[in-house]
C-alpha cells in the first residue's frame, strides 16, 4: 500500500511535468504570434536603439533558439527579467507577490468552503422552507453578479460605513494588516461560496434519502449523530473534489479584486503582462500558475483517498 502510494505520486508528478512543459510551449509560441512586441512603445525607436534593446533581451535570435534558451533557463528555474519592470527578475516578482495572492486566496477559500458547507447543510435541513428560499436566492445572486461589481459595491459600502461611524472601521483599500484582508477575501470567495452552497445542498438531499441513512434512523441512532456521521461526511465529498481547482482559480483569479482594493498581488501582474506583451512575465506567471494548478489537483486526489476509504489510488 505505502509503496503503491509513492509510485502513484511519482507517476502523477511526471504527468504534471509533461503538462507544464506543454503549457510552456503552447504559451511561448502563441505569445510570439500575437502582433506587436514588448519593445513597442508610444515613442517610436530608432533602429539603433531597437537593436540595443533586442540584444539585451535576446530577441535578436531566431525564434526557435529563443525557445531552446527559454527551456534551458526554465529547467534551471530562471524566468528572466521583466520587460516592463526592467530592473526586476520575474522570479523576484513571483516570490514577492505570490504570497500576497496566496494569503488572500487561502482566506477566500476558507470563507468559501466554510460558508458553502454550512449554508448548504442549513438549506438542506430547511428544504423548501423560507430559510432555504432566501439563501438560494442569495446564492443565485452570488453566482451571477460579476466580481468587479461586488468589489466596487462592497468598497462603496465600506466608505459609507466609515463615514457614518465617523472613523475608519475597516480600511477601504490597501494591504498590510488583518483588517485589509477581510473584505477582499470575502468578495473573492463569494462566487465560490455560492457555488459550494448549491453543491452541498444537492448532495445533502441525495443522502437524506439514501439506504444507509434510513437504516441508521430505523436503528434509532440519534439524529444529531446521523447528521454529522452519515450525512455531512458523505455529502462533503463532492465539495472537496471541486475545492482543488477552485483553490487555483481563486488564488489566480484575483485580478479585479487586487485592482479595486489596491492589493500588491500576482494577479495584477498576470493580466497587465498580457496587455503589455511582457513576454517574460507572461511565461513566468503562466508556467507558475500552471504548475500550481496541476499540483493542487494532485493534492486533492490524495486527500480524497483519506476522506473516502473506498477510493483506491492507482
Amino acid at each position: 500500500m505505502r509503496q503503491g502510494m509513492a509510485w502513484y505520486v511519482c507517476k502523477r508528478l511526471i504527468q504534471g511535468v509533461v503538462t507544464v512543459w506543454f503549457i510552456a510551449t503552447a504559451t511561448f509560441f502563441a505569445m510570439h504570434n500575437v502582433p506587436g512586441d514588448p519593445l513597442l512603445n508610444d515613442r517610436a525607436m530608432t533602429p539603433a536603439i531597437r537593436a540595443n534593446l533586442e540584444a539585451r533581451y535576446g530577441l535578436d535570435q531566431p525564434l526557435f533558439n529563443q525557445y531552446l534558451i527559454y527551456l534551458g533557463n526554465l529547467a534551471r528555474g530562471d524566468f528572466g527579467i521583466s520587460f516592463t519592470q526592467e530592473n526586476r527578475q520575474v522570479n523576484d516578482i513571483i516570490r514577492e507577490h505570490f504570497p500576497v495572492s496566496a494569503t488572500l486566496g487561502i482566506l477566500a477559500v476558507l470563507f468559501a468552503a466554510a460558508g458553502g458547507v454550512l449554508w448548504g447543510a442549513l438549506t438542506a435541513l430547511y428544504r423548501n422552507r423560507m430559510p432555504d428560499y432566501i439563501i438560494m436566492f442569495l446564492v443565485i445572486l452570488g453566482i451571477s453578479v460579476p466580481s468587479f461589481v461586488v468589489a466596487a459595491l462592497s468598497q462603496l459600502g465600506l466608505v459609507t460605513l466609515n463615514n457614518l461611524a465617523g472613523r475608519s472601521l475597516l480600511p477601504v483599500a490597501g494591504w498590510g494588516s488583518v483588517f485589509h484582508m477581510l473584505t477582499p477575501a470575502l468578495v473573492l470567495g463569494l462566487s465560490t461560496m455560492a457555488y459550494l452552497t448549491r453543491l452541498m445542498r444537492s448532495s445533502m438531499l441525495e443522502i437524506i434519502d439514501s439506504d444507509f441513512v434510513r437504516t441508521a434512523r430505523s436503528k434509532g441512532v440519534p439524529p444529531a449523530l446521523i447528521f454529522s456521521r452519515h450525512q455531512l461526511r458523505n455529502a462533503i465529498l463532492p465539495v472537496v473534489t471541486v475545492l482543488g481547482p477552485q483553490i487555483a482559480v481563486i488564488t489566480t483569479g484575483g485580478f479585479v479584486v487586487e485592482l479595486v482594493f489596491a492589493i500588491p498581488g500576482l494577479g495584477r501582474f498576470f493580466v497587465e503582462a498580457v496587455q503589455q506583451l511582457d513576454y517574460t512575465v507572461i511565461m513566468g506567471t503562466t508556467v507558475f500558475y500552471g504548475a500550481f494548478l496541476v499540483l493542487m489537483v494532485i493534492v486533492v486526489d490524495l486527500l480524497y483517498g483519506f476522506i473516502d476509504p473506498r477510493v483506491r489510488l492507482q
Partner: protein
Amino acid sequence: MNDRASRANFSELRQLGLYALYVVSGLVAAVWLLGIAANSTGSTVTGGAIDADGKAITIALRTEPPQLDYSRATDSSSFTVLFHNMEGLLTYDDNMALIPGVAERYEIREDGATFWLREDARWSNGEPVTAHDFVFAWRRVQDPATASAYAFIMYPVKNAEAINRGDLPREALGVRAVSDHILEVEFEQPTPYFDKLVAFVTFYPINEAFFESTDGRFGADADMLLYNGPYRMTEWVHSASMRWERNPDYWGDHKGFIDTINVGYITQDVNSRLNLFKDGQIADTQLVPQMLGEAMERRWQIDRSMDGTVFFLQLNFREGRLTANRNFRKALLLAQDPVEFVYKALKEPSYMPAVSLFPFWIRGVDSYFRQEHPPMPHEYNVAKAREHLEAARQELGLEEFPPIHLLADDSPIGAVSSEYYQAVYARNLGLELRIDKQIFKQRLAKMDAGDFDIVVSGWGPDYDDALTFGDLFSSWNLNNRGRYSSPEMDALVRIAQSELDPVARMEAFGKIQDLVHDDVVIVPMYERGWSYVVDPRLKGFKRRAVGPEVDYTYAWIDEQATD
C-alpha cells in the same frame, strides 16, 4: 418526502451550530495567522490623508513605477517618483519656469554649453554631486549595452548617436568635467533649447562608485539609488507603497515643505482612488466625467489643469491611401467640429477642443506661442467639405469611396472618439468608416506598419519647448507614422532645431503650425486635461503638463483651511 424534509430537527440544527462555531473560531485563528504573514508583504500606512502634526501626507499612485533607473526610464509614473527624489542640472519652479537645480548658472553657445555646478549639492550619502557624475551618467545612457529607449533625447550632444549605434566608444561623448564643478558640453549641431532638455530624467547624474556597488540592481529598490532631490525614498514595497522623506542633504529650502509623503496605495482603478479620498485616506484624486455630479453635490472644489497631451486623427500619406489625397483630407477636416466632439461627445470639462498641433500652454518668445502665432481658426463647413470630397473623387477617378480604415485603441475614450467620427463622416460626407479597435501594443504595431487610413493618436511633451511637438512631422521622425513628407516641413524643422535667434525660431514654429493646417497633416481633436479634487488642507499642489504628472515639492499643509 415532504414531511421528512420539513422535520428539520432541533438537535441536527444544534449540531450544525456547533460546527459553525468551530469553523468561525478556526477562521479567526486563520485570519490572525494570515495577518501576520501579510504584514511582511504590505504597507503599514494608517495616518490618513493629512497628518498635520507629523507634517505628512498620504497619496496614491496610478501604477507602480516600472523603472527608476533613470537612464532607462520612459513612463510618467517613474518620472513622478524621480522628480521628487532627484534633481538634474536645471529644474522647474511652481510656475513651470526653468530654475537652477544642481547647476547654479549656465551658458549655451552655438557649439556647446557650460554648466557651473553648486558646491553644496549632495547625494543622500553625503558625497558632493560633481560634474563627473553627469559625465558618467550621460556616457552610460549612450552605451549600447544600457539599451536606453530615450537615448535619442541626448543625440544633440556630440557623437552621442554614433556611440549609441556602437560606432564609437562611450568615452568619445562630447561632455567632460573641466573640474569637479564645471561641466562642458559639445554639440553635434546648434541646440538652443538644450537647457530645457537637461531638466529631463535621462540627463540626471549618477554616482559611479555607488552605481558599481549596486551590482546591476541600480534603481530596483529604495536602497539601490542615491538621492539628491528635495525628497529621498526610504521605503519601497513593490506595487504596494513607498515613503518619501524630506532629504536633509538637499541644498535648497525653496521646496520640500512636507516632511513625509507616503505613497500608500497603488492602483489604476480610478473609482477605488475616489473611495479612498472620500474615506479621508489620500490627499488628492482624479475625477472622471461620471464623478463630477457627485463631486458637485458634495461641494468639492474641482480643479482643472492640462496634462500636456494633444490628440488628433493622424492621416496616412502612404501611396495608394485615400488620405494621401489633399482634397480628401481637406474634406475630413472641414466636415467635423472638435468643439461639438469635446462638449457633446466626450463631456469632459477639463478637455479643450484642439485647433493646432501645438497646445496652448507652449511658450513663445515673451508670452504664449499661440498668442504670438495664432493658429488658423477651425472652420466647420459641410458644404465646402462636400466640394472637396467631390474634387477628390474626380482626381482619384472613383465611382464611390471604399470604406475607410479607422484604427483606434480599446480605451473608453478611444471608443467614443472612433464612434463620433464614424457617425459624423457618415452624416456629413456619406463615407463609411470601419473601426479597427486594437489593444495598446497591437495598435502600435499596426501604426508602425502603416496599416490604417486614419488613426486616433496623441502626442505628449518630453520637454518644455515647442520643438517637442514641432519636429513630429519631419520626414525622418519615426513617430510620424502616417509618413508625411515635405521638403518645406523638413527645412522648417531644421531651422527650429538650430536657430539661435528666438524670434526667428518661433517664426519657424509658426510656419510649421500653418503648414500642418494647410496640408491637413492631422485633424486636431482635443487637448487633454485633468479634473481633480484636493484635500482643502493641502496647499500648493500642482499637476503638470511636462515631466511629472503630480508635483508635491511645493506643497504645504494648512491645518485650519476648510476650502
